[in-house]
Every structure is written in structure tokens, then in C-alpha cells.
């Protein structure tokens, strides 16, 4: 099992990178008024046909040669369903894949949001040539990170692999998420326990 949502996002997004995506769009939406949390990962990678798409829910289905899937999606599905939510996967061969998961926000089993900054630093440093778009919404507040904007400054994608940029990115993301109160509910939950 993966400990929090940020680990799930990292895991699912690694599938997108392995599928040769050029752009990956990540969304984490905390709709506190409606008491739902939505997570989605969309890519323009090689996609899957209907048959394979149906089989990735099976924990014992994996493609050893491409390492496209394995336990990651079943883990996330289990976590979502345990919180009255669901996981849906839509994919088109040659066009890309979209995964969406929902969680009842105040469900006792809802995993905490976790360390989003660490996940994004890992994704950007590990796959600097992919355009990463991360959107985090808390009701009406939003933080948007687009790696293309960072590259407009850095020019060379390999700069994303350098420790100095990684450290800047970690603080930049953490401070902006704090601004919009991201993960606040889960922090409150942790303090209660």
C-alpha cells in the first residue's frame, strides 16, 4: 500500500512517463464545501486498447516488458472505494490515458494529501523533458505549476535535474500550497488523532 495521495500521484504519473507522454496534467481538487476530493492524471502517451484498459484493475496483470501497470492502479482503486469514491480509467490507443479517482473528503480512511512538493520534484527531475502541469484547487483557490514556465527561465531541461533547482522547486511548491491551505483537512485530522 502507498501511504498517501502524493505517493499515488507519483506512482500513476510514472506510468504516464513510461508510456512516453509528452504532456502530463495532474489535478488535485479539495472541494471542502461538497466534501469530495478528486484526483486525476491525464497523459498523451501511447494509451491502451479496450481489452488492456479493462485488465489493469486486476492486480495480477502486468506487462513485464513495458512495466506499464501492476499494483499501482489496484491500490489506488482500493483506497478510493474505501472512501465511498471510485476510480475510472479511460484510454485510447495512440492518444493517451486519463485516470480519475474520488474520495469522500472527511472519510476516516481517506489518505492524507502528503508531500506534493516531493512528488513534483521527483517527477520533474526524473523526467525533465515531459511537460508537467500540476493544478491544486482548494474550493476557489488554485495553485498552478507548469514546467514549461520553468523551462522558459531555465532553457535547458537538464537544469531540472540539478540539486539547486530541485531545492528551489521544493520550497516554491510548498509555500504556494500553504498559501491556498492545501491538505488542511488532513492536517486537522492528524492533530485530532
Amino acid at each position, binding site marked *: 500500500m502507498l501511504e498517501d495521495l502524493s505517493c499515488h500521484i507519483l506512482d500513476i504519473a510514472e506510468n504516464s512517463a513510461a508510456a512516453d507522454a509528452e504532456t502530463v496534467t495532474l489535478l488535485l481538487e479539495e472541494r471542502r464545501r461538497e466534501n469530495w476530493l478528486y484526483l486525476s492524471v491525464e497523459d498523451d502517451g501511447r494509451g491502451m486498447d479496450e481489452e488492456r484498459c479493462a485488465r489493469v484493475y486486476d492486480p495480477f496483470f502486468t506487462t513485464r516488458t513495458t512495466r506499464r501497470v501492476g499494483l499501482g492502479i489496484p491500490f489506488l482503486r482500493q483506497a478510493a472505494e474505501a472512501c465511498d469514491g471510485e476510480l475510472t480509467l479511460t484510454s485510447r490507443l495512440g492518444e493517451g490515458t486519463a485516470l480519475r479517482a474520488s474520495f469522500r473528503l472527511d472519510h476516516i480512511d481517506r489518505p492524507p494529501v502528503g508531500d506534493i512538493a516531493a512528488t513534483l520534484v521527483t517527477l520533474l527531475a526524473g523526467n525533465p523533458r515531459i511537460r508537467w502541469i500540476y493544478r491544486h484547487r482548494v474550493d476557489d483557490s488554485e495553485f498552478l505549476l507548469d514546467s514549461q514556465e520553468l523551462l522558459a527561465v531555465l532553457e535547458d531541461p537538464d*537544469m531540472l535535474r540539478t*540539486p539547486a533547482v530541485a531545492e528551489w522547486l521544493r520550497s516554491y511548491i510548498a509555500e504556494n500550497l500553504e498559501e491556498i491551505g492545501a491538505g488542511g483537512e488532513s492536517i486537522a485530522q492528524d492533530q485530532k488523532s
Partner: protein
Amino acid sequence: MPRIKSLEDLKKIKENAKDLTSARSEGKTRVVIGMGTCGIAAGARKVMDAVLAELEKRGLHDVTVETTGCIGMCQQEPLLDVIRAGQGRITYGKVEPEDVPRIIADHVVNGTIVQDKVIGRAD
């Protein structure tokens, strides 16, 4: 409340790094961390954090950090490979964040392999 980091700060990092681009060559050391589901579940992201922090602390800008998927040794995760010119690929297993400073200091900097954590090697 600290001041929000801005893209201006990033520009400064970019400018300071200009003279480092000359250090980019084929002989560069690479650190590769397994970031499959198994690696993530075992704590690979914390190892990645520790590697980046240690490299930044030591000012080692000519080392690249990469990630890879599951390589089938899930029971040994988190896995960390160091590929240093002339030494081939050394794979370390069950790497904890606390092991990272030692691997960076002994192996990445000085070329001395940390034998007690090695689980594989390839040329």
C-alpha cells in the same frame, strides 16, 4: 511567514549555474533511483529527497539524478544505482535516507564503493 519563492530566484540559480554547464561531459556520474510502485511503497521518494539535499549541501552540480521503473528486485527496494565513469553500474539495495550521505561521500565523491549495501554490479 517566509517570502514566497519567485521565478526571479530561479533566474538567479540559472545565472549562477552558467559556469557549471562546462562540467557537463560524458564522464559525469549518474545516480538512478527506482521509482516503481514497489520503490515508492518502500520509501524511494525519501531517498530521492536525501540525494538531492546531500548533493546540494556538497555543491556537487555535475552529478545527475534520474529515476527508473521496477526492475524486478522489488524485495530489495529502495534501489539506488551509482554509475561512475570507469566503475560500471553499482546497485545498492534497501537504501535508507540515512545511508545516502555515506554513499555520496564514499562512492560518488571518492570512488570507494560502500560494500555492505551493494546487491549487484554491472559493467
